[in-house]
């Protein structure tokens, strides 16, 4: 799962800490999502999109991988 959170954050001049507080998660979660290490739940995804005032598909983009799912479950 690819995302544009870093770009959207830069456009809004928002820190990771501020975004984390707005959507009710820790800063580490924002870092992990930005680095594509962690797939957020739909609830968090929609909250992020709402903070930036865009649609969820403008923040997240699903990319099919050849050798497995986009996010590792374990």
């Amino acid at each position: 799962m690819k995302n544009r959170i870093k770009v959207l954050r830069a456009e809004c001049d928002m820190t990771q800490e501020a975004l984390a507080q707005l959507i009710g998660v820790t800063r580490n979660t924002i870092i992990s999502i930005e680095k594509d290490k962690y797939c957020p739940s739909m609830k968090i995804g929609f909250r992020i999109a709402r903070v930036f005032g865009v649609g969820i598909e403008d923040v997240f983009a699903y990319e099919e991988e050849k050798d497995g799912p986009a996010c590792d479950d374990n």
Partner: protein
Amino acid sequence: MVILMKYNTFLILSVLTSCLVASLIGWSIATGYLIIPVIAIPLGVMVILACRQNVDVVLRDDRIREIHSLAALRTLEIYVILGAICAVILYSYIISDPLFPTITGRSILNDNGTRSMEITMYEPGFPGNPEHIIRSTNIHNVDAMNEFEAMEYSEFRRESFLDNERKGLVGITLACGIISQLVLFGGFILYYSRKY
């Protein structure tokens, strides 16, 4: 002024309080002071509840919950296997008990005021049967033993504490199990926190 504590501090305090109450219960059972648990248990609950009131708000988002659940799942998977192995070892140890030799002792008060003792070791499964004696030692004076007699005497004494040793073994196994479980759980949390 109310001092707020972190959730982990609250957990440590709760565990320590529970251990203290449990040790008081164990001690009261051993000594017969049965009033102690009646006071200690409500007091322990009150301390834990009072601490719970002063815990800082914990932010547990989806990622932290997922990391914790993955760590718990992996710990559980490992401990089901380890627990089964430990249970089989302990059970086989207990059912093998009749295969150990039995040591008995008989104390005699002599006419001259000294105490003598006859210590007999029987073959496994035949305690008290004179046809299955492995060896028998007669200590002429319990208050003036030679080295060999003292060794036999201590072995006999150890036999009488075997039940206590077994209870201790179960307690230590449980304690080590819980400690290693917590360490493993912590290790998995660190691993998954780095991974995600």
